[in-house]
């Protein structure tokens, strides 16, 4: 099977530039990178069909090997439609992100940051056990109400 060198080179450039753009933090660039990679994949599909030939419409006196392979072209068509939809959706998301936060960047997950930054000390597990273990509560502590409890936790914060 012969392979078209120009096609291969273009494909390589598309993939390389696409990967570079995806690694950026700006959403618009990520989207451009995804578009380039999709097109690179489409070219790869095209080149799997072998060298270009006649349109694949059956003629009685045309030998079979002179036709183009129609299957990769059908696959590319499907893939173009899909990537079109995904690109449109990405654009909508980027626009929405801009409307909401005036920013065009991939944002950190706040909850992730919080878990990463939490200290190894855990209030529930690692607190010192109070020395007094009696079940009988002195009268002045017995009236612990939700309100005082809340006040205590807020003081601790």
């Amino acid at each position, binding site marked *: *099977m012969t392979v078209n060198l120009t096609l291969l080179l273009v494909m390589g450039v598309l993939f390389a530039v696409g990967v570079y753009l*995806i690694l950026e933090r700006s*959403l618009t660039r*990520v989207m451009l990178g*995804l578009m380039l*990679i*999709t097109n690179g*994949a489409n070219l*790869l*599909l095209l*080149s*799997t069909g072998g060298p270009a030939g006649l349109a694949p419409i059956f003629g009685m006196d045309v030998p079979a090997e002179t036709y183009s392979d129609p*299957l*990769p072209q059908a*696959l590319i068509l*499907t*893939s173009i439609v*899909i990537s079109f*939809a*995904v690109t449109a*959706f*990405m654009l909508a*998301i980027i626009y*929405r*992100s801009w409307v*909401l*936060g005036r920013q065009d960047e*991939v*944002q950190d*997950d706040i*909850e*992730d940051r919080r*878990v990463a930054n*939490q200290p190894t000390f855990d*209030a529930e597990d690692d607190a010192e056990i109070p020395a007094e273990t009696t079940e009988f509560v002195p009268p002045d502590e017995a009236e612990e109400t*939700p309100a005082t*409890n*809340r006040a205590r*936790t807020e003081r601790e914060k």
Partner: protein
Amino acid sequence: MNAAQIAPLAVVLPLLGAALAFVLIRHPNAQRRTGATTLTVTLALEVVMLASAWANGAQAVNIGGWIPPFGITMVVDELSALMLVVSSAVSLAVLLYASGQGMADSDEEGPVSIFHPTYLILVAGVSNAFLTGDLFNLYVGFEMLLTASYVLMTLGGTSPRIRAGVTYVVVSVISSMLFLVSIAMIYAATGTINMADLAIKLGELEPSTQMTLHLMLLVAFGIKAAVFPLSFWLPDSYPTAPAPVTAVFAGLLTKVGVYALIRTETLLFPGDRLNTFLMVVAVLTMLVGILGAVAQIDIKRMLSFTLVSHIGYMVFGLAMSSVVGLGAAVYYVAHHITVQTSLFLVAGLIERRGGTTNMDRLGGLAKLSPLLAILFFVPAMNLAGIPPFSGFLGKIGLVQGGVDLGTPVAWVLVAGSMITSLLTLLALARVWNRVFWRRPEDAEHPDPVLVATKPDGSAVRTTRHVEERPHGRFTGRGIVQLLPMPMVWPTIGLVAMGLALTVFAGPLFDLSDQAAREMLQRTPYIEAVLGEGAMQGAGQ
């Protein structure tokens, strides 16, 4: 009768339902009825397909009458039929739950009218991925369900959902591109994309070429199935979506990836070339996932991490490539779809009843709502693998397979799965202790509405906090219906289905072992598509 003849309906019916629901966009009630009816009919058809596949083995149908290697084929065998029935039952329950929630009872949650059509397209994509016998059609199925899931994930377009959606969309598109590139390479190497035909022709390639193609497919499906080094995106993006959406994603989407992995390993690239590698990946997925779960204080995030962790069990069963291991993995997938989805639905109910899923603020829910406590407790113990439940049976099967195999890596995996099971129990017991068991005022940041709620469980209409800040986050909590029955019933149904997996474990294990045997033989699948004697023709 050839049950495969009705297989295309499992894809077409939800799509038609989606179209109808889209036309009825201004009539929410009609939309709900359309969705429920469509899914019920689809489920009934799939049960027929399962019964037929169970009795007669794999069957195939050629779409449009094109002869197999050229046209698109749909194959119904035990695995795909079982997956279809379980996934449809689960998605029906989630649809009813979502309809119950109304999806509209709060301000920003959003454009409800779009939910039903998108959801039905998601179901159609899942069915297509399970049924197809054509690699490119599998890609199309993936894209259908992914595109629908992008919309569901960002429903309402609030800031956290957009942030989560960006991660999700970019990662999914990259994995789809990897899959597309693998398809192109496979087509270049073999000249076919029919999976049965590939099963014969891939074996004739050079080992190094096979290895490349195999690895590319594994990476592409590994991202979708959230297997360890490729699982980072999942806990980042799932928890922010609305409860029913997260539930259905957790139940179905990663399992479609697992299904694709099973097909790759058994049908396309049989043999034990990468089994040790997969085992290492499996044990890492389990341990890293569950350690993440233990560190979380948000219930939904914790559940997302257990989801990742338990994908490891399925990869474990798959990597053993023995009838016992693979059969247990198939059973485990069915169990996990049901149980994980019901836990996410319960998390949605907890969010309604307690106003948050943050464990630092919740407390005392067992007293407020004993029903909710039972609904959480049963699937939680089921997921952790406590003896009478199906999680235990699935894990026993996997451990038995590992012990039978007896290699050092297999023993490591057996140990790893035990540890993971214990840590799952720990993570879920933490939820139980904090959310249900302790008094609300003992919470780290007590929730004023929960604290002020009377012990008999009746909701407080207004508290001081609500009066002080009329537009604060506690407003309206006492007024919305706390646990609407249309939401509770589907949850009860799913929990009961999880229990049914225990009660009918015998026949189900027979089915999954039969599925595993046929998958490892490969002949039934290939001959169903290409006709009798296809394997002999290829010199095998």
